[in-house]
């Protein structure tokens, strides 16, 4: 009923599904952890209540996103073995240690300090609590460092030798392996993407409450503050990200030219300068881009900085080494399109700021609400570009995806895939719904703490442990606890 190909395809779909779902959470929590650290730092520095309120407002959202990231991440750490056992055996000696370092230096750091960050505000002094927040933020970054090193090594493998039993073994310098050629570019591009993703979520939530403010007619300093902070990020980080993305593209051209050919839709070689295809419909059967709208020689200008530079096309690549063109071509355009839309929002906000009307521009606010989830779409599109673009290899040039899977039968993989789809959509769908519900609440002075339910505080929130406190009373939180 099923043949090998089906089991392989199902395993690929399962990995793509679980990793895409998983990455939404770190893409958000890497940026949010840093944002929380900034908010708490500003509160400690200025003593302004608004920063503490925003910290507590976003901390509740962070707690849910982080929990979803943890549980979907554990799935990833086991899926290499369950579904890609040949890959695990072959690549384990090289990438296994990098992933072990991720656990040792990042996961423990995040998890160890998360409890204090979420629940420890009244248990430890301010500075210690701030240290916990910083450690969690640092942990999210260190985690990104190692996992992107692993991913980059799979894209641009160096520093290995091939063992007698077919395993890839570390060949000498671990420095070369960790800092492989595409790693610095991928790290910068991905971390900035996470910051932008978070900034646009924060900006969108701020804008949503500014629109409500407009309706209510009362100024909301919390919404203004978060919108303003997010728009600074949009205005400053987006141009930097576009620049970093360009450098990353040039790096890919050097190391994985076939991926760039697919991104550009260059089926044919162009000895006298390649056109930039803006839009069109790639047809892999006929090896052409139909209805192409193109700018002559612009691709050569962007990629080689020379109008007449010759560019190879997919006609120079053997058919069985070509990535699927359509998916790479489209996902790349979606990512770039969103990037420029983000830039537009950033510039628009600068214009508003210069005219001192940032909080009084309903169309900017509406656009920001619309753009709130755009970071997730861009991140996903970017990952599709780079992961589909390196096919048919899982370790570029060394191990084909088709040769990497576990010896599982199709029904087993089909069953697990179905279970993942049902559980992820249900559980994470509900989690996202809870997050949206928290976001729809107007941020206000005296934000409640993390573990209080939506129907008012479940437990009381005094400074001193008081055995006689009455659960369910509605006293707002004290602003802070004095250092001890």
């Amino acid at each position, binding site marked *: 009923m099923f043949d090998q190909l089906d089991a392989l395809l199902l395993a690929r779909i399962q990995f793509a599904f679980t990793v895409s779902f998983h990455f939404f959470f770190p893409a958000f929590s890497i940026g949010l952890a840093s944002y929380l650290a900034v908010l708490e730092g500003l509160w400690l520095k200025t003593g302004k209540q608004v920063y503490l309120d925003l910290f507590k407002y976003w901390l509740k959202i962070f707690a849910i996103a982080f*929990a*979803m990231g*943890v*549980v979907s991440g*554990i*799935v990833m*750490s*086991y899926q*290499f*073995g*369950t579904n890609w*056992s040949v890959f*695990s*055996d072959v*690549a*384990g*000696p090289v990438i*296994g*240690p990098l*992933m*072990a370092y*991720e*656990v*040792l230096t990042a*996961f423990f750091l995040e*998890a*160890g*300090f*998360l*409890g*204090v960050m*979420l*629940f*420890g505000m*009244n248990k*430890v002094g301010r500075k210690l609590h701030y240290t916990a927040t910083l450690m969690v933020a640092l942990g999210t970054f260190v985690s990104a460092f190692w996992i992107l090193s692993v991913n980059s090594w799979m894209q641009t493998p160096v520093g290995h030798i091939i063992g007698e*039993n077919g395993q890839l*073994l570390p060949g*000498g310098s*671990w420095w070369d392996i960790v800092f492989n050629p595409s790693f610095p570019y991928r790290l910068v591009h991905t971390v900035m993407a996470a910051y932008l993703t978070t900034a646009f979520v924060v900006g969108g939530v701020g804008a949503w409450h500014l629109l409500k403010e407009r309706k209510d007619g009362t100024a909301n300093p919390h919404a203004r503050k978060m919108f303003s902070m997010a728009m600074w990020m949009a205005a400053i980080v987006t141009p930097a990200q576009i620049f970093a993305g360009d450098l990353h593209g040039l790096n890919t051209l050097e190391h994985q030219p076939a991926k760039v050919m697919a991104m550009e839709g260059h089926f044919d070689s162009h000895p006298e300068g390649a056109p930039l295809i803006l839009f069109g419909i790639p047809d892999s059967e006929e090896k052409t881009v139909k209805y192409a709208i193109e700018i002559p020689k612009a691709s050569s200008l962007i990629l080689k900085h020379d109008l007449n530079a010759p560019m190879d096309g997919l006609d120079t690549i053997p058919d069985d080494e070509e990535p699927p063109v359509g998916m790479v071509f489209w996902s790349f355009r979606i990512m770039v399109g969103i990037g420029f839309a983000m830039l537009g929002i950033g510039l628009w906000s600068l214009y508003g700021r210069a005219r001192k009307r940032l909080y009084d521009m309903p169309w900017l606010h509406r656009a920001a609400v619309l753009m709130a989830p755009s970071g997730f779409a861009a991140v996903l599109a970017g990952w599709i570009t780079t992961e589909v673009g390196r096919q048919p290899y899982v370790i570029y040039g060394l191990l084909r995806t088709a040769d990497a899977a*576990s*010896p599982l*039968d199709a029904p*087993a993989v089909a*069953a*697990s895939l179905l279970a993942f789809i049902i*559980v992820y959509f249900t*559980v994470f769908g*509900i*989690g996202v719904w*809870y997050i949206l519900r928290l976001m729809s609440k107007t941020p206000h002075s005296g934000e409640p*703490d993390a573990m209080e339910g*939506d129907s008012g505080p*479940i*437990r*009381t*929130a005094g400074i001193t442990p008081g*055995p006689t*406190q009455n*659960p369910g009373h509605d006293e707002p939180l004290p602003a802070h606890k004095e250092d001890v």
Partner: protein
Amino acid sequence: MDLTVIWAFIIAFAVFAYVVMDGFDLGIGILFPTVRVGQGRDRAMNSIAPVWDGNETWLVLGGGGLFAAFPLAYAVILPATYPLIIAMLLGLVFRGVAFEYRWRDPGHRAFWDAAFFGGSLVAAMAQGMTLGALLQGIEVVDRSYAGSWFDWLTPYTLLCGLGVVAGYALLGSTWLIWKLDGGAQKHARYLALRAAIATIVLMGAVSLYNIFLNAEYADRWLTAPEIYFAAPVPILTGLVALSMIQAIRKERNSKPFWLAIALFFAGTLGLGVTMWPYVVPPGVTIWDAAAPESSQIFMLVGVAITMPLIIGYTAWAYWVFRGKVDDEGYH
């Protein structure tokens, strides 16, 4: 000193740390339906909310460490126990999100409490059955799993699964004795005594089954000279079990929990005696599966530097939330 042996001990330590630390979290999940709705459940949950994530990280270290230090074992064991691993992962998804969701949605708290229970039970059972599947032996040909798809489902693996469920319930209930007071503590004592008896009976049953399961295991436990090394393990286990039951009966505060950990330690020693030097019985030794020396050294440096720090700040986090859980809870 043989690096492979060092790594075998590091992985064993990570697995032991996981089993004990997430064991009491999962155990509380398994016992959750018997805990009174309302304040009782809130307190039980709050006693682990700040630490569960750190506890679960040891599972990632166990898996990730196995991948890094013994890639062949990782590449064989996981496909061989595929349905169990998937079930465990999905179980952990449900119980992990329940920590947050039950506070966010009081209207559906009963549902998330049930998810917390179901997820914990499934994860514990799957972990125990995976251990059983490993102990009963995995068929390997050409560096790849070569058994059939239901090898993991036998009376023996089911027995191991139940043993782990009972053991986790023991850890969870003794933790609750330590962290709760009043009627809730009394209830925890009631549970602990029953979980202790179930754990001891199932540990004994699995140990006996081992001897019939595999001639090599039997040799190891029953013939000289191995018996001189092996015999102290069951004797130690028995002594620990008795003093633990005493401690529960005498209404001691933290002692039952520490003795439950000691019981797990004795069990782990027994497991070590049984399996050594195989990482995938009956054919793959730790040396067959080991990563090359360069990988082992590179990681050992990381472990040597980070492990004392990890243990330090984890201990600090536990210290911050020390003492009985009170109504003020954690904010």
